């Protein structure tokens, strides 16, 4: 048998389906301990699923991307050599074409889609959303009363010890110590600190194992030394667990430094005007959550109110803002912001599959009924 025929075979289809099922079961069960986000990343958005054998990372199963890719090859090969392009097979052709688009759209979504959070308190105005768990080290020049100049250092750069050069800034940083997750609190007696400036001198840091479940967030913590040329300005403790930013002065300019959830800035602003949390009378069962926001986009000359409520998100500039959460005694509304350039693809895919299946099965059914009667 030629290779292409093997690739096009139903056997390979069954292997893919079987692997997909095992992967889905494993990925679902893993969510109990890992949380949805981490399980999704490890099982479905990966080429390979690993397991820890002692300290060794051993590949144990093909990941979602691998299974999808093999399946895709299988489908394309089937179109090339196995499927018969005849009228009686119309349904089969359409539905399998649909599956190809479906696999593609899922791949695009997994690689391109982006989700973040936008918490706004009543009356507040925001022009950015925040990443769920990805942190950044932010340096904000606050001397200009009109605008803050923000320099953001991504996690991958500050998550290990070593120097960080900052082009355009009159100083550089050295990460002296880094903790992916830590517990911070007032330093106990005898506890020494690496910090030589800021609040960090009075704070004790205890390293913790990183967490991944849905309701826990790592307290990313580190000690950063600020160098003006060769001269040290001091070592600061920075942590996502610290509330307020700390500041220092270089060449007469004030800078703030802190670790915060990674921000995505938008060219428009949203102001939370109202938030409603309706419950069914005499119960605490939520009936509806709704937020009235004021959207201002100077470039597009748009300034309007929008109501975001259950099953009715706001779609603007390729982003979907939906009511995800609330807090602070109903004074805070949290929107989830999803950006997915491939969001149209599943619609086409699914229409094709459903159409194909319907054509195929209905023709079978009519034939069956005709034969019986």
């Amino acid at each position: 048998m030629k290779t292409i025929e093997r690739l096009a075979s139903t056997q390979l289809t069954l292997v893919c389906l079987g692997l997909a099922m095992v992967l889905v079961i494993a990925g679902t069960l893993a969510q109990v301990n890992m949380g949805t986000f981490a399980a999704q990343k490890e099982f479905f958005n990966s080429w390979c699923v690993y397991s820890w054998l002692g300290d060794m990372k051993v590949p144990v199963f093909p990941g979602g991307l691998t299974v999808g890719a093999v399946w895709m090859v299988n489908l394309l090969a089937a179109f090339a050599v196995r499927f018969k392009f005849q009228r009686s097979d119309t349904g089969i052709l359409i539905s399998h074409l649909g599956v190809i688009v479906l696999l593609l759209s899922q791949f695009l979504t997994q690689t391109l889609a982006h989700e973040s959070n936008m918490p706004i308190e009543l009356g507040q105005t925001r022009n950015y959303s925040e990443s769920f768990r990805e942190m950044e080290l932010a340096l904000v020049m606050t001397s200009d009363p009109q605008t803050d100049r923000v320099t953001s250092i991504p996690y991958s750069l500050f998550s290990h010890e070593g120097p960080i050069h900052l082009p355009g800034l009159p100083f550089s940083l050295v990460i002296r110590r880094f903790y992916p997750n830590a517990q911070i609190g007032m330093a106990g007696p005898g506890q020494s600190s690496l910090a030589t400036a800021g609040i960090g001198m009075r704070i004790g840091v205890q390293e913790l194992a990183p967490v991944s479940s849905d309701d826990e967030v790592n307290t990313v913590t580190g000690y950063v030394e600020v160098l003006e040329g060769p001269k040290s300005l001091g070592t600061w403790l920075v942590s996502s667990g610290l509330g307020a930013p700390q500041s220092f002065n270089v060449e007469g300019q004030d800078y703030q430094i802190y670790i915060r959830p990674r921000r995505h800035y938008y060219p428009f602003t949203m102001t939370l005007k109202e938030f409603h949390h309706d419950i069914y009378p005499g119960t605490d069962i939520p009936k509806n959550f709704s937020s009235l926001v004021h959207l201002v986009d100077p470039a597009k000359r748009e300034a309007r109110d929008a109501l975001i409520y259950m099953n009715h998100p706001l779609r603007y500039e390729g982003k979907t803002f939906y009511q995800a959460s609330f807090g602070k005694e109903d004074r805070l509304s949290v929107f989830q912001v999803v950006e997915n350039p491939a969001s149209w693809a599943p619609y086409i895919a699914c229409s094709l599959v459903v159409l194909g299946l319907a054509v195929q099965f209905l023709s079978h059914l009519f034939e069956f009924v005709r034969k019986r009667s």
Partner: protein
Amino acid sequence: MTEKLLKGLPVFLVCLFAAWLLMGLQAPRPASPMDINGFSCLPTLEGGRIKPLDTVARTSMLLLRGKQTVRWHDRVISADEWLLDMVYKPSGADAYPVFEIDDPDVLGVMGIQQTANRYYTFSDLKPHLQEIESQAQQAEQAKPEQRSRYQTAISNLEERVALYQKLQNTLQIAGHDHVLDEVQLFTEKLGPILMTHMAKGQKPSRALMEVLQTAQKYDFMREVAEFYPVPGSRGMTRLEWTSMGQGILDSMTTVGVPPPVAAYAALGDAWRAADAAAFKKTLIEYRNWLDTKVPDDLAHARREFLFNYYEPFYKSMIMYVVVFLLAVFSLLGWTRPLIRSAFYLLVLAFAVHTIGLVSRMALQGRPPVTNLYSSAIFVGWAAVLLGIILERFYRNGIGSMVASAIGFVTLIIAHHLTTQGDTMEMMRAVLDSNFWLATHVVCITIGYSSTFLSGSLAALYLIRRLFDKGWNEPTASDLERMVYGIVCFSAFFSFLGTILGGIWADQSWGRFWGWDPKENGALMIVLWNVFILHARIGGLAKERSVMIMAVFGNIVTAFSWFGVNMLGIGLHSYGFMEKAFVWLILFAASQLAIMALGFIPDYATRRSAPK
């Protein structure tokens, strides 16, 4: 002679059961001289919706003891009668054994040795209330999925005690007699005192202190009320019902006692005095008043009361058992008349099932599936419908047998789910969308039904191959064709349902697919059905292998239907879902056993292969 009798059997059976069904339509017979039924169909607001007190009574008792009646001194007390005692004669009600406790550690906390008796009275628990509460508070510090069996059980008991006490203080402060006089005194005499004092800003007098104390009592009632029986005085919209306590407090600013408050107080006095005439008279007057103020709610409560009373699902469940037996006996002899009887009765049972389903939809104003309970009702309904269609084509009793089995089992499951609370609960915010409930949820549920149907047909194939003397090639290939057809049907509907779910998610959250457990469960059914289809079409699986795979579909479906709700619940914790988990495992084991039967080669069976 026998022949003639047998020929008449189907019609006779249908008439017999139709008569039984019609008899159930008779007006509910009062169990005592008091007009309990009249009380039970009064409308009230609970859990965010208008319902009859009968539903409050049944739901509460199911929550407390898992049944709708309580046996006490050789007398069976209905939920309605129990509720009347609870709200009006609490000291009497405290003697009914309505708390089901079967956790030995919880009993240990109260110093009770476990015996065969699982039911305890409130009086039994009374000395231990503080301990129960503090233990439960401790337990509730752990996350629900991390609680031990004991922690879940004690927290559950505390919730039930709270429900019990709330019920007792909803219509009046527990233990008070002559409530009507009290309320009248309060509104006519004491209320105005308070108003004048407040107006003048004087120092509190003794009279005022008395008023304040009474007002505090009613304020307590307002706070703990389990249900809101007083139609709103303002606007009279559905959402403005209030508690009895609030009703009394509001009456300070109105002239005289508001009719609902007076009625419920007078009903209590009459119930305690066992004064049937006064009870009846108050009810009639109050119903007339309701009819002028909230006629829709009154009518709704009355309809739901009749629905509760008629128990259509219970009736169809019994008939499914009869159908199943008839279909099984048809394999042994008298084949034709028994197959026909089974089919006729199946259609009748299905009609009653449909009436129940449609009544629920009408009462709730929702598509058929809104929660786990209604999904069980609908899975059974759709499977029976498909079974009837199969039987119409094949007329060999197979459709009836399998349909009745699924109908019965799913209704049993539904029955056990009633102990989880109101089955017509309000939809939480994001689920409050009739369009998606009607499309996505219905398609997914049809997918469950049909996968169970194909799985059961395949199980029948594997069992009959070994144990049925009349097993032959035509039967085998008929079954095979049925299974294949239904697998196609399932693949289509589970795919469509899963996709519609994705579209819902995309429309609501901007995210088509999130790999969350419920989505993955649906995806599993699609993948498995597609697997079977490819294995068969590709010629890689022969008839018997396809049957084995179809039976496995039962396990896949059962896990995505229920297993997903149990995720994170290990065997270490306890409660309803854990009991259900054991059943789920047993079900899976039974299906694996049936699949194993399929691996017995043809030459090892007593007969030769069907060819």
